[in-house]
């Protein structure tokens, strides 16, 4: 009985993998074939000669490598600044007493119920008012500003679980709040901060709508917008387009594969996701 059900479940899981992986396999196969002026037929996908030429073409065509570096820059800066800001804000909410603290936090939480896309119009007018449309500072400010709440919420929980007693040794040595922050709270929350960092990076890397509305100059565009343009300009070069797509997916895939065992989950008290 037990063996039979194990067998069924394994089969179901493997069948599910075909559904999950199938589209990716199709994408990879298409990216390895050339002369696809219409979508390649399944027979062609199986039998045509495979080549990597689309990858080198995609990389060198149409400023693609420039867009890749743009995205790398914007995502890295956003990640570092977001993490610093989230850590200090979360620390303020976790370990300080001040009037109206819970009210302020509730106000923060409330905004999490508002889908980001509803704010895009007024956010655009704010960036416009400070003359930052079509600039990286404008784009990055908007990413950081709209991300503070979520990441503060995420980190506060971890900070609060660190025993207050640990602070005593710092107090005895005459250390300040700042000393406590960077010798206790930051090091002990590294897994959480790392998880948050990865989500901040990949979220920015894939972000489409804000980048589309803020950045106008072609050479400053980020990768998601570049992909959309690429699709417009090389509409029927399916192999080329998929090669470009895969190049865009790779950094995130690598990061998640390397760190997948270290992720923590803020909604579970003990340990979170263990590998």
């Amino acid at each position: 009985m037990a063996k039979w059900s194990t067998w069924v479940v394994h089969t179901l899981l493997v069948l599910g993998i075909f559904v999950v992986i199938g589209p990716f396999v199709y994408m990879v196969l298409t990216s390895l074939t050339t002369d696809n002026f219409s979508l390649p037929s399944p027979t062609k996908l199986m039998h045509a000669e495979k080549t990597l030429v689309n990858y080198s073409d995609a990389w060198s065509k149409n400023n693609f490598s420039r867009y890749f570096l743009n995205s790398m820059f914007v995502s890295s800066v956003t990640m570092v600044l977001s993490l610093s800001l989230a850590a200090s804000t979360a620390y303020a909410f976790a370990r300080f007493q001040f009037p109206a603290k819970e009210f302020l936090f509730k106000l923060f939480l409330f905004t999490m119920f508002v889908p980001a896309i509803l704010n895009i119009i007024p956010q655009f007018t704010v960036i416009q008012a400070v003359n930052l449309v079509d600039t990286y500072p404008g784009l990055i400010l908007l990413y950081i500003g709209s991300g503070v709440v979520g990441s503060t919420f995420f980190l506060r929980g971890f900070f609060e679980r660190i025993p207050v007693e640990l602070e005593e040794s710092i107090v005895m040595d005459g250390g300040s709040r700042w000393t406590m922050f960077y010798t206790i709270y930051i090091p002990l929350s590294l897994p959480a901060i790392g998880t948050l960092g990865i989500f901040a990076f990949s979220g920015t890397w894939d972000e489409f709508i804000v980048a589309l509305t803020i950045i106008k100059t072609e050479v400053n565009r980020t990768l998601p917008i570049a992909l959309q343009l690429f699709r417009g300009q090389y509409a029927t070069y399916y192999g080329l387009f998929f090669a470009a797509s895969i190049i865009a997916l790779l950094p995130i895939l690598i990061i998640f594969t390397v760190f997948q065992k270290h992720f923590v989950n803020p909604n579970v008290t003990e340990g979170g996701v263990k590998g």
Partner: protein
Amino acid sequence: MRRAIRQYVQVAPYLTLGVLLTAVFVLYPLVKGIYISFYEYKVLAPELSLFVGFDNYVRAIQDPKVLIALRNTVLFALVTVPGQWLLGVIVAMMVNMRTIRFKLFFRFVYYLPVISSWIVVSYLFKFLFSDSASGMVNYLLVDLIPVLPAPVNWLQNTWTANIVVWLVSIWKGIGWVMIMYLAALQSVPKSLYEAASIDGAKGVRTFLHITLPLMKPMTTYVLINLIIGSFQAFIQVFLITEGGPMDSTHLLSTYMFRHAFQFFDFGYASAISVMMGLMIFVLTYSQQRTFGKDRIEY
């Protein structure tokens, strides 16, 4: 009073910037959005904007395309939220079974769509569901396993186009639900299950009477996120159907975006936004107080 000031002085270095940025980029835009919705807003010269009262709202209510977009948004939520949740829970339960091997592998593969870029995935599905006979899905369903008599023009018909949008959204979201539940499942003490099996509970009954009740806080959290996420849906429609055929697959979000950034009718688009915001507020109201308070403890 003096104590309050001292407390603020202490916390200020850590708190100020975060609160300031949130105020400028989240809270103020919320209010500004409502303000804009009462104006015929001039993007290039805001000072020339005309106050029009509820005109934008009246226009939105009478716009048949808003009604269609609303229908699509509601249907999208009704299909994709239960779809992602159910499949995600099932996969999580299966991967979590004691006798299942290669857990890490399964978890990784099912999570792949979640970390893949929306743009890439949207275009990928657009090509997979391509009209021609060389579209992969048409090939599979007509030639390989003959379920359909003839190739379907997936993106040329309202309902098949909607189905494609739903499928890609469910496909992409299952892994996230799975990861959340796997995390919660791993922290359930084994002793609870042992006690249940001593009492003679098995498989499905253990699941219904022990696992699911224990997962309740996680279920609330996951469902709220899925609901908010479903109203957030944008790229898949923006890129796959572009609202077509004949504006019949627009979501409120894509319809709003088009009025804002194609027609530069910010006032009208903001009115649609505000109405959407109100809908979500009502839908999630009962959960807002408790959200973030109940952590899962056993």
